[in-house]
């Protein structure tokens, strides 16, 4: 009888230990969850800091220059007398570069990633993917100089009217720069599509092309679009390559062969230049940065809405 009691007691005791252990475990869980939450919060803090810094200085700028003049003006000469603060030429320059880079990088990047995930053997893939990632790591200034010293002279033999600074060469190098990002990320997304989906399509007699375009890409659409948006954001925010290759002449033009200036190139030019801090010319940096921030924000809001609709769950 007594041995029975001890057995029951010890059983209860061990259960209690488990129960206590369970509570202790959940306390640890909470700590982990909170730590991870704070990691995520850092991005919010970063945004707030950026907004705060930009708003402060841009606010000072907009006391002297009307918002209307800024956004709709077509002449950008804040550092020259007579001064003019219409930002459209810079926006034009940025759009020119981004459209050019995207039309190069999106199709090529997508096709490359399809090759990597659907067609290439493991050996080829283990060689090609790292090579492409090296492309991603080449410093932006190298790309800028590459555009100046190789690409522009090369295309000058076909189009002699090309100026030494032009949007065309800059778009090409920015496209090359974001290519690996699209290729690598899309490749990862395609590999995450369960093979069972592909096998099902093969089973009903589809060719590899049909499987890829009809099954794999639609399933991975959210990942593909996510990669596209990331790459486009990189293209918009690219600084040194466009500073070196596209030029420093703000111009309202759609001609890719002339010198233009993007918003980012302007920001770099003034922040690293000789303009005294605190003047209205210096404050233009913050106004332009603020505009860039708002543009990318709108772009992201739109793409998020789209992404939400396309997100696929596999099981």
């Amino acid at each position, binding site marked *: 009888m007594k041995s029975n009691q001890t057995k029951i007691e010890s059983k209860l005791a061990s259960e209690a230990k488990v129960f206590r252990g369970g509570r202790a475990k959940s306390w640890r869980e909470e700590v982990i969850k909170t730590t991870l939450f704070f990691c995520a919060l850092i991005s919010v803090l970063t945004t707030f800091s950026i907004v705060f810094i930009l708003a402060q200085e841009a606010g000072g700028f907009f006391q002297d220059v009307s918002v209307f003049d800024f956004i709709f003006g077509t002449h950008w000469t804040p550092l020259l*007398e007579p001064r003019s603060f219409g930002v459209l030429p810079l926006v034009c320059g940025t759009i020119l570069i981004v459209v050019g880079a995207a039309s190069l990088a999106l199709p090529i990047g997508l096709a490359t990633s399809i090759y990597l995930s659907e067609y290439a053997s493991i050996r080829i893939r283990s060689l090609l993917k790292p090579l492409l990632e090296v492309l991603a790591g080449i410093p932006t200034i190298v790309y800028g100089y590459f555009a100046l010293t190789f690409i522009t002279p090369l295309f000058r033999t076909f189009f002699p009217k090309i100026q030494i600074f032009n949007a065309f060469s800059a778009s090409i190098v920015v496209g090359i720069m974001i290519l690996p990002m699209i290729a690598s990320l899309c490749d990862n997304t395609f590999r995450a599509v369960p093979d069972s989906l592909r096998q099902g399509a093969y089973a009903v007699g589809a060719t590899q092309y049909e499987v890829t375009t009809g099954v794999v890409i639609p399933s991975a659409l959210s990942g593909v679009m996510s990669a596209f948006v990331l790459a486009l954001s990189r293209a918009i925010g690219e600084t040194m390559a466009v500073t*070196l290759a596209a*030029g*420093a002449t703000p111009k309202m033009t759609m001609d890719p062969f002339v010198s233009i200036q993007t918003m980012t190139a302007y920001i770099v030019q003034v922040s*690293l230049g000789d*303009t*005294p801090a605190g003047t209205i010319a210096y404050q233009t940096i913050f106004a332009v940065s603020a505009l860039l921030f708002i543009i990318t924000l709108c772009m992201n809001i739109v793409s998020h809405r789209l992404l939400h609709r396309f997100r696929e769950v596999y099981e």
Partner: protein
Amino acid sequence: MNRLFVCLTLSAVFLFLVCERNSEAKERLKGKIRIDGSSTVFPITEAVAEEFQKLNRKVRVTVGISGTGGGFKKFSAGEIDINDASRTIKRSEIQNAEQNGVGFIELPVAYDGLSVVINRNNNFVDHLTVTELRKIWQPGSTVMNWSDVRPEWPEKAIHLYGPGTDSGTFDYFTKVINGKSQSSRSDFTASEDDNVLVMGVTGDENSLGYFGFAYYWENRFKLKLVPVDGGEGPVSPSEKTINDGTYKPLSRPIFIYVNKTGSKRAEVQEFVRFYIKSAPILTKEVGYIPLPAKEYKNVQDRFEKWLKNPLLSEKVSSGAKIKKVLLEGN
């Protein structure tokens, strides 16, 4: 006899110790010297820092290139000891410095000659007067062809290349040619990197550009220099004409600004003295033109006087020749 011997030995030992201490004093200099500012002045400062650190191994000199404006911002906040400047300090920057109690002295260290260049195959331009330059470069200029400058020149389009609107070179050129700093036409190919301007002019037959003398000199076989007539006949920039001021008005002085608080430290004082002393040689090595020897002596004297002076700041370069160059280009 013995006493004399002892006295002599003691004096010898004493003298020896004193001499040893003096020579050790240089090696005993230690600390950090922080320099930032213009990328134009950077090559000179780098050369000076290199030589200085060979003699004083315990001193750490660091140099940045945030630009003259960025440098002044840090300078006015007391974050750096010396600012490299390709232009003189502006009023707003002086105010900033005064607000933070940062005193300074402005010391010219070298000349840079802004060279006007054309393509090697251009054979009709023999020289340009300041008036003609102004006609080409002024804001709202209607000069589109070479014939708009001089009727006998061909009616081909003129392509302009110049430093970025944010650089000290641009600042100075517009001030002396167009009369007002930063006043210029806006439709030229601008670049922060003078090497690109060189590329542009060499590749374009109808080009006209301007940039620092060092960039012309390195590429002198690929470019054609345009003599500039500043009122006393066309003068080509060269080491001699920039140095003695006959190449006007495009010879510009470049400066360093020294922080008053920083100057209280021995290593900073020694560095600036070394800078002025070695500038005549080092500036030439990196492609700039030294000031006339008398001017360097002047700068040295001003610096020593300022060190002893409780007065906070001294801006005006009292060197007569330099002042003239700044104001009238003569």
